């Protein structure tokens, strides 16, 4: 068993539990601060400090094992600032960041965001890419972001890093990555009705014939 302090109150919980598991073991019926329970959704961001140590850690409660003398505070919501825009109207140039998220240019380079990232991302670096208008690099560097917001809670410049990165990824996905020509062509074929005959033909087959086709279909190597 280990001792943990949930919002300052002491509980004894079995070793090896995640922080989320420890909270439930302690009797919490979670509503806030619990989402996918698998490290993808960013609902369970948590800050903790080990008694006697100076360093403050940030993590996802569902992905982190409890330690003895852990002081735990959940951060189920952080007020990120999301700007509203029309993805079809904006352009992937440096201007767009200046207009929507000008505070990124106030970054003082303290690197607190990177230290706080629950995913271990180089947050300050992706903000630097965004400042330069290098959205492809920003998108790549921020790709594993779960938008938990812990980075922003530590930022003296008031940057909403996950929202900046989201904008960069959408710009990259829509405008910067090359077009998939085979996709454009297939969509046109479907919309022109060129695929209709083949699908109607296979739909008209009795199940016995469909089974025959399925069991002997060639499988791409």
């Amino acid at each position, binding site marked *: 068993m280990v001792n943990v302090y949930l919002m300052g109150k002491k509980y004894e919980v079995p070793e090896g539990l995640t922080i989320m598991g420890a909270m439930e073991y302690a009797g919490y019926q979670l509503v806030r601060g619990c989402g996918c*329970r698998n490290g993808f959704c960013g609902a369970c961001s948590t800050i903790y400090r080990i008694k006697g140590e100076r360093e403050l850690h940030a993590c996802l409660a569902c992905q982190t094992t409890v330690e003895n003398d852990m002081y735990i505070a959940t951060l189920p919501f952080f007020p990120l600032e999301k700007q509203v825009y029309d993805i079809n109207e904006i352009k992937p140039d440096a201007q767009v960041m200046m207009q929507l998220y000008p505070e990124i240019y106030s970054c003082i380079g303290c690197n607190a965001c990177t230290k706080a990232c629950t995913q271990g991302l180089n947050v300050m670096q992706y903000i630097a890419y965004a400042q330069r208008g290098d959205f492809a690099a920003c998108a790549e560097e921020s790709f594993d972001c779960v938008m938990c917001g812990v980075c922003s809670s530590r930022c003296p410049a008031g940057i909403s890093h996950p929202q900046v990165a989201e904008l960069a990824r*959408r710009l990259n996905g829509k405008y910067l990555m090359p077009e998939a020509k085979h996709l454009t062509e297939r969509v046109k074929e479907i919309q022109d009705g060129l695929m209709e005959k083949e699908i109607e033909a296979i739909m008209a087959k009795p199940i016995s014939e469909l089974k025959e086709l399925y069991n002997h279909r060639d499988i791409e190597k």
Partner: protein
Amino acid sequence: MMYTPEMLASMKKVEAAREKNIALEPRRLTAEEKEALLKQYHPDYKDEGFVTIEVGPNKGEKAPVELNEMLTAHSRVADMDLDLTKVDYDVDVLVIGGGGAGSSAAIEAHEAGANVMIVTKLRIGDANTMMAEGGIQAADKPNDSPAQHYLDVMGGGHYANRPELVKKLVMDGPIAIKWLNELGVEFDKDEDGTMITTHGGGTSRKRMHAAADYSGAEIMRTLRDEVLNRQIPVVDFTAAIELILDTEGKAAGAVLQNMETGEILIARAKTVVIATGGAGRMHYQGFPTSNHYGATADGLILGYRAGAKLLYQDTLQYHPTGVAFPAQIFGALVTEKVRSMGAKLINSEGEAYIHPLETRDVNAAGVIRECSTNNKGVDTGMGKAVWLDTPMIDMIHGKGTLEKRLPAMLRMYLKYGIDMREVPILIYPTLHYQNGGLEIRANGETTCVKNLFVAGEAVGGIHGRNRLMGNSLLDIIVFGRNAGQQSAKAAKETTVKELTLEHVKKYEAELKNAGINSDKYSPKLLPNYAKGRKDI
């Protein structure tokens, strides 16, 4: 490294056989062999997991014990004195659920000019969509076609799929991918723009599109951003606890409850879209689950009480590769993409006992066979498991591939000191997907309740009795968009009459007549994992 001596001993055999196993292409099972394997080992065939439904539109059919418990529980509004003339939200389209299907529906309803609102019991994006790792299918390559996709879907679903729904799925597939791409979803592409596509279990063409192994997360966060850009109202931490009909029997809103304060709110709507997702947190037959916290089949209960029919409610998908070890992530998903990229399933003796890309139901049954009657499972302390030989990936595709293509998986295991590039991982089936759900027509409307639409995992019939990897992300987009467009259209032609909850009273009376008096309330809303608390 936290593997036990017994695990390490078995791992030695896996390592010794690795080169040979990489070269081996295990024989595909015949149709007869697959059927025999499923009948003997798949949980869907285990009689004690099911009971006969005693009330409602599917009376006489089988349902999982835990689902039937919710179907026969009391309505949460049964004892409430509600004034339905006091309306808190009045909209054209009410979307229940904030996952991929609900968000797609809301975006399209908004695009069609409807006044649309999303209500969700957790946050927008807290959904199975967010956790879908592997990818999304669509027949957009020259060697592929919607008809070829159709054949794979029907065969994989054991020919029980509704053909008109499958047609819509495969024909609208490439259109859905294009729509997502134009919203800014970053699909994996080659330098010339060609989509990088791989196989999934049961596919005959490489048509699995991905965004690393964050495919669902990338789609979900883009859709969420778009919902917010359009300033569509999202009422979060608020559950729909009952549908409201009007005096003509049309769906006309929902009773809502704030998950934190308990406040009751009334939403009136011209049309309603159920996009409440799956049921993994019902833990059918005691299985762990890969699903998000709120996957409790709410929409099925709401729809059923209002008179909508269920279809294939007795078939669940157990993903063959759930985490079996370590305990902290027990039941979490190991994406099928790991097998798509060449990792094979290996038993305790180092044998590649099956083709890794048989359909999910077949491979789940195969794992259970190795771990039970074949006695070739590895003991994890929580049961038996087989190996998924992940080091094969970099050996086949070159060093660095696993890190680039499966970053989420690598991160998840590294947190527990397991480097899946170097050592294999232990897996066992986990409850993953609700194959069945509410019955709909191709326009997304339920067959029995007018103006009630359904999209996403709450739908039954698209995937028959077994879904293929990558067809769920596809269906939430295709049928989500469809439900949004159709519900907005229907809303324009609808006049809502007086609101009523008579259907709930009638259902309660039916339960009473059948001699059922449950001590439970439904929908479940959230599972109860808190120690020392009584379930309500």
